[in-house]
């Protein structure tokens, strides 16, 4: 580790000298983790803050708006017997902003769906190997949950592989993706503002040309009989899309903003 100061104290026993070194290095965290704790977290805390009086006012306005919407709604009233069939899952409430509940990146899942595995099971090995090279962790093979006759898929057939990353491994992978892979892609300018699942989680999908852009894959590209695409699902503790977007943009993930009309822009 460069630029790290460590205090090394000699251990008495000769046999254990090689096994142990009591050097408490200045805690090495991954770059993104350090940045989050040093800078991003406080920035998000400040940006998210809404004073209680304004919050109460906004809450009251929201309630009256929903009440008016319900009353003004025409057409058939909802069937109380079908109330249990909740088609749209209700979003969790936005929590009161405190010093400690800023959003953070919880988990990143890298998933490779391998349709070629239906004909030849060996193709899944390519997926597993690729996941291990990209992330440094052993992948998990997933089996089909349902039948799909159109693709000759039966329940229980192994069809894809995934890796769930948390902690430092997750930040390392995100770092590689944002700093190395995305800039190398052709014509990639960022995520759209419509991205996100509604509750602050984002998924990026890539095709097989992108997997070769990882520095580790460049070296061993020829060893893969099958080169697949992959998808990256970023799960955050943000409760809404704009908050999630703010968090990920802090790490360097680009977003495509809608162009403001010229009349609204001005030079200071």
């Amino acid at each position, binding site marked *: 580790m*460069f*630029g790290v100061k460590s205090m090394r104290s000699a*251990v008495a*026993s000769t046999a*254990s000298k090689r*096994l*142990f070194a*009591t050097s*408490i290095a200045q*805690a090495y965290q991954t*770059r*993104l983790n350090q*940045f989050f*704790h040093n800078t991003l*977290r*406080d*920035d998000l*805390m*400040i*940006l998210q*803050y*809404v*004073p209680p009086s*304004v919050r109460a006012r906004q809450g009251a306005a929201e309630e009256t708006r929903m009440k008016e919407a319900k009353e003004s709604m025409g057409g058939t009233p909802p069937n109380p017997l079908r109330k249990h069939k909740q088609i749209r899952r209700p979003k969790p409430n936005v929590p009161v902003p*405190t*010093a*400690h509940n800023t959003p953070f990146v919880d988990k990143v899942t890298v998933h490779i769906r391998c349709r070629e595995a239906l004909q*030849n099971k*060996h193709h899944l*090995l*390519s997926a*597993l*190997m690729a996941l291990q*090279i*990209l*992330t*440094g962790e052993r992948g998990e093979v997933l089996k089909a949950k349902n039948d799909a006759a159109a693709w000759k898929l039966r329940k229980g057939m192994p069809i894809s592989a995934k890796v769930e990353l948390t902690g430092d*491994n997750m930040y*390392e992978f995100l*770092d590689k993706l944002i700093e*190395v892979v995305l800039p190398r892609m052709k014509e990639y300018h960022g995520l759209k*503002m419509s991205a996100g699942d509604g509750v602050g989680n984002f998924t990026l999908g890539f095709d097989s040309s992108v997997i070769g852009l990882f*520095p*580790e*894959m460049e*070296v*061993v590209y*020829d*060893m893969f*009989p099958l080169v697949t695409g992959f998808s990256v699902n970023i799960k955050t503790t943000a409760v809404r899309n*704009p908050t999630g*977007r*703010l968090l990920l*943009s*802090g*790490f*360097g993930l*680009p*977003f495509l*903003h809608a162009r403001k009309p010229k009349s609204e822009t001005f030079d200071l």
Partner: protein
Amino acid sequence: MSAFGRRLCLSTKGTASMLGRGASAAKTSRKAAAASRGPGHTNSDPRYEQMKRILFEEEPRQLPELTAEDVERHETILRAEKIYYMQKSAQRRQERERRFGAMEKAYVALEKLDSRLFEAACKKEPNVTFPRQMRVPTETPPRVIWDYSNGKK
């Protein structure tokens, strides 16, 4: 390759190097396979045999054998590390609470002082993101860290 780039690849260096080592061997074996297709041959790429070997048959590293003393040392070091991280986390938490408290006080004072400025301070842009120029710091930063000219010359 910079130190940063090197660290990026460290986590998966082992796997990639194992695959790379077998590159030349696989080339010859592929030719041999193409040349002589025996009756029991299963039409699968010999590279998959190599992958199977790496993924499933390679024995895990041998952990060093620890004596009772060594176990005590190991646990002490782990405990010390945990204490260090706990202290750091508590320190950060305290600082955060202090900053948050100061911010709350400032908002309350502003509300009493000037309602127009208070409303302007509370106004939030709907889809705000951090600027693209704000890059995560690196160990080898550029000469000009922030361009204040806004791109104009």
